């Protein structure tokens, strides 16, 4: 049934019809009609951010922790351009976002009007799809189609650019039938090919050195996908590793878990990937941080690749058996087919493989030399993890980008999907704080912690003000090494320890800064006092900025330097990484 309303009202109505409860945004001239319509309703709650990039990361955190799309509203020109980083981040990590950007009136488009920018042009390559709405009649269809495209297939960000005159125009609002949507060309393939799944299971049944290599696709396919993965792992008895994006899909407490793989992944995960005979990639994309040197990547394995995006197949690594489809459906089919063929795990056949894996495990690649005078960053994360385990609340972790992010992935352990939010593909410093705000909006009673670096956190620090305004008790746990630690590490490795601009000369007093924003500040530099300080942070009912002063020059290990195969990983007992690369001839490309 059609109902007369303005374009601005249609936007709000469509959001309400889509079940949207929260929207992250920032007003401006071109967006005012939508803001006016928002003012006159209660279905959708607006969270006012401090910078539009913050809004996009909040929406990402919200989406990743709920499985629902995150929604953003920004004004034209600078509002839209500020959103570009978050849109790109969401595209790289396949996060469903709908971003509504206001635009100058249609009559002004192309005249270099005040706060005009070519939003659809600028965002074409950083969105899954984008629209410029030129007629109010199209608006209801476009709004609903935007949600469909953002959330189905391989999820991603969609921009809807709405000129101000369209927001004012009167038209008929209707809820379109999804089948009659314009884009008949858009039909993601959900079910995997039955023959391919059968062939994959046959390959798995003959494996002697198998490994599951899982990724963000398992998380995106919904919690059921993680359930099926657990079931399949139990049925087969195979070891499981995951990318940074996939952490939590398989429980870290399970003995079949090998830890994260990749550049800073565990020794056992990387060596098992290198030496396996059957690799089962589920929802991961052979990213260069995972493969290292492509021509030396897992040279002797048959590779199965399950992915919803056909263009991921053979993009980087040649695979023997592609299965295009949704991870949830394919995993559940694999479970069914496996069960129809056997009721035995392959424990005996793969016992020697597990023995080998145990040897690699015994190396203890995440070990570090602890200290009783200075807080080691890894130790800080271990203590944080132990403290949060005792909490009755749900615990969600977000991160910034750098060494602290990798240490968080290594030392904080996840048993559930959707509880770990990090910027993997784009590696966006400044992601974690606003993402934590978004998670907390979706889960008001949960404990949400941003594991941060002192450099990254300053990129979106102002969103602390948003957290204070909406009483969102996020905890920002800064591993302050007074360095852009990850950059410093690369400079040690490759650039003769010439530390070009990789440290901060005038860091703010984070405790005072927290107080200035109306939050709580805590500082700790003594390992003996760390537990008490963490308890103080967790007990405080409000946003906390915790400045943990850690060892300044700790290296993040293990590490597979670029251009090296997995079995040339640098282990933590190595004293000086600069020397190691010298010895090996600095053969990096």
């Amino acid at each position: 049934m059609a109902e007369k309303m303005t374009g601005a009202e249609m936007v709000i109505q469509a959001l309400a019809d889509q079940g949207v409860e929260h929207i992250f945004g920032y007003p401006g001239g071109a967006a005012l009609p939508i803001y006016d319509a928002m003012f006159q309703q209660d279905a959708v709650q607006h969270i006012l951010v401090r910078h539009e990039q913050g809004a996009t990361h909040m929406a990402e955190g919200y989406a990743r922790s709920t499985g629902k799309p995150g929604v953003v509203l920004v004004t034209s020109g600078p509002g839209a351009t500020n959103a570009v980083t978050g849109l790109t981040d969401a595209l790289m990590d396949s996060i469903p976002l709908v971003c509504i950007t206001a635009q100058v009136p249609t009559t002004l488009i192309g005249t270099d009007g005040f706060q005009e920018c070519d939003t659809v042009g600028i965002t074409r390559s950083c969105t899954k799809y984008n629209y410029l709405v030129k007629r109010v009649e199209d608006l209801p269809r476009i709004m609903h189609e935007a949600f469909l495209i953002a959330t189905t297939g391989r999820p991603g960000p969609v921009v809807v650019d709405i000129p101000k005159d369209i927001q004012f125009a009167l038209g008929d609002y209707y809820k379109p039938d999804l089948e009659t949507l314009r884009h008949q060309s858009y039909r993601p393939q959900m079910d995997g090919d039955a023959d391919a799944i059968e062939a994959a299971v046959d390959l798995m049944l003959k494996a002697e050195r198998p490994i599951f290599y899982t990724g963000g696709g398992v998380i995106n396919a919904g919690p059921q996908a993680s359930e099926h993965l657990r079931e399949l792992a139990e049925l087969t008895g195979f070891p499981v590793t995951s990318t940074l994006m996939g952490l939590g899909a398989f429980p870290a407490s399970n003995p079949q878990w090998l830890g994260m793989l990749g550049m800073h992944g565990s020794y056992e995960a990387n060596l098992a990937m290198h030496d396996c005979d059957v690799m089962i990639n589920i929802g991961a994309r052979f990213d260069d941080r995972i493969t290292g040197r492509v021509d030396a990547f897992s040279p002797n394995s048959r590779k199965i690749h399950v992915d919803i995006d056909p263009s991921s197949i053979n993009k980087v690594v040649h695979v023997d058996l592609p299965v295009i489809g949704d991870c949830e459906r394919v995993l559940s089919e694999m479970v069914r087919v496996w069960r129809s063929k056997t009721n035995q795990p392959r424990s005996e056949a793969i016992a020697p493989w597990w023995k080998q894996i145990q040897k690699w495990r015994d190396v203890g690649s995440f070990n570090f030399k602890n200290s009783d005078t200075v807080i080691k960053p890894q130790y800080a994360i271990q203590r944080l993890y132990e403290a949060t385990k005792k909490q009755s609340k749900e615990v969600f972790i977000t991160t910034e980008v750098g060494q602290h992010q990798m240490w968080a992935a290594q030392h904080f352990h996840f048993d559930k999907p959707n509880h770990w939010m990090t910027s993997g593909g784009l590696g966006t410093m400044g992601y974690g704080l606003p993402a934590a705000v978004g998670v907390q909006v979706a889960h008001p009673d949960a404990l949400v912690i941003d594991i941060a670096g002192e450099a990254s956190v300053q990129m979106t620090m102002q969103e602390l003000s948003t957290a204070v305004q909406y009483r969102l008790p996020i905890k920002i746990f800064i591993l302050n090494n007074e360095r852009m630690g990850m950059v410093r590490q690369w400079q040690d490795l490759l650039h003769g320890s010439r530390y070009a601009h990789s440290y901060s000369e005038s860091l703010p007093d984070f405790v005072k800064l927290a107080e200035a924003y109306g939050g709580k500040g805590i500082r700790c530099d003594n390992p003996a006092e760390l537990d008490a300080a963490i308890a103080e942070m967790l007990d405080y009912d409000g946003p906390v900025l915790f400045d943990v002063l850690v060892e300044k020059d700790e290296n993040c290990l293990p590490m597979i330097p670029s251009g090296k195969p997995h079995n040339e990983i640098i282990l933590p007992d190595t004293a000086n990484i600069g020397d190691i690369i010298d010895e090996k001839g600095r053969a990096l490309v």
Partner: protein
Amino acid sequence: MNAHLQPTGSAYFITKETQEIERHTLSVLVDNEPGILARVVGLFSARGYNIESLTVSETEHGRRLSRITVVVTATPRTLVQIKLQLERLVPVHKVHDLTTEGASLERELALIKVAGSGDHRAETLRLADAFRAQIVDATVESFVFEVTGKPGKIDSFIGLMQPLGLVEVVRTGLAAISRGQQGM
């Protein structure tokens, strides 16, 4: 300054391409909507693919569908990626690689302006006849020819006109279709 003292590395591993470059014609069926061409062309530039020729026009008015014929040069591996990346675009219905999927026909149209007098003029007309080029404009000093055919035929005709007073050329780019009864 002292950077030369030590070899620097990279955060990336760079592989050398080992496959041979091939030239393929792709036929892409798309929704004729604003920005569609920018989307397709943007994909090529963003991912570093080479376009040799591109033709686009609406072909089914009722369903607002356009056909894009694009000639690309790439390694076989990249060609598969190009096809899959194109298919990933929301308004793209289908992509066919006409070079690999059976026999196909390729045609191009060119308008060619030649100026001259005397012997040159007679020779120009004789060659135009041999190439079945139509005269679509004539003055006492010039001709405009219309030639259709495979790109190679047009290339040779242009080559022959060069010494005879070639002024300028416009070409439509390639239109291609598969042989036989099957459509896209």
